[in-house]
């Protein structure tokens, strides 16, 4: 057994729970793919599960499908992705700044609250059959003729726990970066000015305030800049979703007290704009910035060369904040009542701003690798390259649909959710998080990844499976197959659905290869040491001595 430090152990705990959430989310994904392929496929399993659900009548297969579809992205994004991000940042930020996390007590609190929040939302779907989907389009979450009241209340509570927890996490990150123990401490306003690029802009215009601290972050690693910048999106996302959750909760509690409120008091279009503005801070904000930050950190470390074009990259980080704040209307291109100027400017043109910022980011990343040749293709570097491929493929699909003309035939189709969103999340973000785990394990434990064969199996099964699934379903979408719709048999999408289901199974095989390799690397004793209380371990060691 290796001696693992306090912070390192918590990072590994976050990673382990994140991977468990990925397994749960992946299982849900496979089950839903199977149900889309063969609508009656899950009937036997659901009959057994219904015996533990506190519902008055047997739910329909569609109710079960949509409640699973509601829980699935919460588990995948706020369970898997956020847990891994929290764990990684709680190690990397203090490591790179050479100081401790400011509020260490929040590390286990964040860990527990995230699990509680995600599992509460999951429970609202699994037990409470809450089926409004993550989009929560007003007034569906408070339309109790189609959405269970208790499920709606429990989901809103779970979402609120997650969002409050994310705010606590962000506070801890900012607090750590800004704390006075940093040799180059910043005030909050200096940091905010820098995050919005005001100081950098002033410098470009020749109006630099020389007495001010290095406001353009020149004194900080570029990874920290990206984390700070992405965390602004994270905070906005949490605040906006918190307000939506509070609204749903108010309506739910009023209905529970037999004093129902009028849903039409809230304008559905204004709500949709507000909701997507906040939600898109994740989809088009922190995901891209955190990803860019991790590329900027990992690639130079893995290839042993300084990041190419670092000055440009810092400017891109600044510009991308403005892009992510103005991009949300591409989710409302199907809404003809959304003002046309908003659809064209915010929905289409600003979205192309991401093409420019991500284009420069990817160029800097690939140029760094190219100029460092010959490079050793370590497990982490392979997965970094896989993630770049995923973001290129998912980004291209996104640009095609984020178009006032083409969106008319792509909106709400499988193209959007498969070829764009799932390629981003599974091939892009998923492979990036695997790269981080492969890179961090030797740093945290001084143990080398055990099997190269299993790394390769993981890489190819995951890559081929995710691309096959996304491509097949994307082609089904291009032929008119809607997302969020169960088609009765026979339907023309069966061959695509079959390939999609096979693709998801291939990914599951890759994930198992990864788990076997990681457990083999760490050893069961170290894995158990992550979940067993420290005092038990000390007693065991004393007894052995």
């Amino acid at each position, binding site marked *: 057994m290796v001696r693992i430090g306090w912070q390192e152990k918590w990072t590994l705990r976050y990673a382990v729970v994140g991977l468990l959430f990925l397994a749960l989310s992946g299982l849900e994904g496979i089950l839903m793919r199977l149900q889309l392929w063969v609508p009656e496929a899950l009937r036997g399993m659901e009959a057994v599960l219904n015996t533990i659900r506190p519902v008055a009548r047997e739910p*329909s297969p*569609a*109710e079960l499908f*949509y409640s699973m579809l509601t829980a699935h992205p919460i588990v995948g994004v706020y369970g898997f992705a956020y847990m891994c991000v929290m764990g990684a940042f709680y190690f990397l930020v203090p490591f790179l700044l050479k100081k401790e996390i400011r509020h260490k007590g929040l590390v286990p609190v964040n860990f527990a609250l995230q699990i509680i929040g995600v599992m509460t939302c999951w429970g609202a779907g699994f037990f409470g059959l809450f*089926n409004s*989907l993550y*989009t929560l*389009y*007003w*007034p*569906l979450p408070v*339309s109790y*003729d*189609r*959405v269970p009241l208790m499920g709606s209340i429990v989901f809103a509570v779970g979402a609120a726990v997650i969002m409050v927890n994310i705010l606590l996490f962000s506070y801890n990150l900012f607090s750590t970066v800004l704390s006075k123990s940093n040799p180059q401490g910043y005030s909050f306003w200096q940091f905010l000015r820098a995050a919005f690029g005001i100081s950098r802009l002033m410098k470009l215009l020749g109006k630099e305030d020389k007495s001010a601290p290095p406001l353009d972050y020149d004194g900080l690693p570029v990874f920290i800049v990206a984390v700070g910048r992405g965390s602004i999106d994270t905070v906005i996302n949490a605040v906006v979703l918190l307000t939506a959750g509070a609204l749903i909760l108010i309506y739910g509690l009023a209905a529970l007290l037999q004093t129902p409120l009028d849903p*039409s008091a809230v*304008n*559905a*279009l204004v709500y*949709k704009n507000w909701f997507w503005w906040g939600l898109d801070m994740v989809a088009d904000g922190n995901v891209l910035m955190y990803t860019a930050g991790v590329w900027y950190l990992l690639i130079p470390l893995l290839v042993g060369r300084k990041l190419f*074009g670092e*000055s*440009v990259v810092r400017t891109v980080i600044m510009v991308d904040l403005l892009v992510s704040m103005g991009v949300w209307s591409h989710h*409302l291109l*199907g*809404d*003809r*009542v959304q003002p046309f100027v908003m659809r064209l400017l915010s929905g*289409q*043109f600003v979205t*192309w701003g991401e*093409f*420019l910022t991500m*284009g*420069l980011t990817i*160029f*800097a990343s690939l*140029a760094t690798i190219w100029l460092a040749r010959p490079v050793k293709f370590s497990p982490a570097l392979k997965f970094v390259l896989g993630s770049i491929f995923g973001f290129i493929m998912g980004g291209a699909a996104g*640009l095609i649909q984020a*178009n*006032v*003309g*083409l969106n*008319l*035939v792509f*909106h*709400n*189709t499988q193209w959007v959710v498969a070829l764009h969103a799932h390629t981003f999340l599974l091939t892009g973000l998923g492979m990036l998080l695997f790269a981080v785990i492969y890179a961090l394990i030797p740093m945290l434990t001084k143990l080398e990844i055990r099997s190269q064969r299993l790394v390769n199996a993981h890489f190819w099964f995951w890559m081929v499976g995710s691309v096959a699934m996304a491509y097949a379903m994307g082609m089904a979408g291009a*032929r*008119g*197959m*809607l997302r*969020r*719709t*169960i*088609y*009765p048999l026979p*339907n*023309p*999408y069966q061959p695509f659905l079959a390939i999609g289901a096979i693709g998801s199974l291939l990914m599951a095989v890759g994930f198992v290869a990864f788990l076997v390799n990681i457990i083999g690397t760490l050893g069961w004793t170290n894995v158990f040491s992550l979940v067993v209380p420290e005092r038990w371990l000390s007693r065991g060691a004393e007894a052995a001595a």
Partner: protein
Amino acid sequence: MERSERLWFGLLILVAVVVNAITLSPMVPWQKWLLWSRQTPDRSFNIEFEDYQIKLPPQGIQVKVGELVEFVATSKDVTYGFGVFRKDSTMVFQMQVVPGYENRIAWKFDTPGSYDVRSTEYSGPRHPEMFIEDAIQVSP
């Protein structure tokens, strides 16, 4: 900015300009009437959505190839979607039906035949039932 970055950035801008110009131009057929003309519709049809039901005009929807038809969709409860599909299930067009608004879209059909209508937005567990076969008849 190094030379290779400037070249790459220039290429990115070129791709962005060309793709946006093409997709906003009349080369995308429906942009001719959605973006580049203010033609008054030849006909208008009201479609109502409520309680998982799509209510078409009582006389049905019959149109001719090439005439400009406006669809006005309203919802009395939640958000739905108004989507028109060919018989091979490929999509002709669609829009969101936001409650509290008159949601309008104009279209010119270029091929005669029967078209299906389906709600394209999730509105609750019975959403997949919202399908009307042969809802629109397009004559030559």
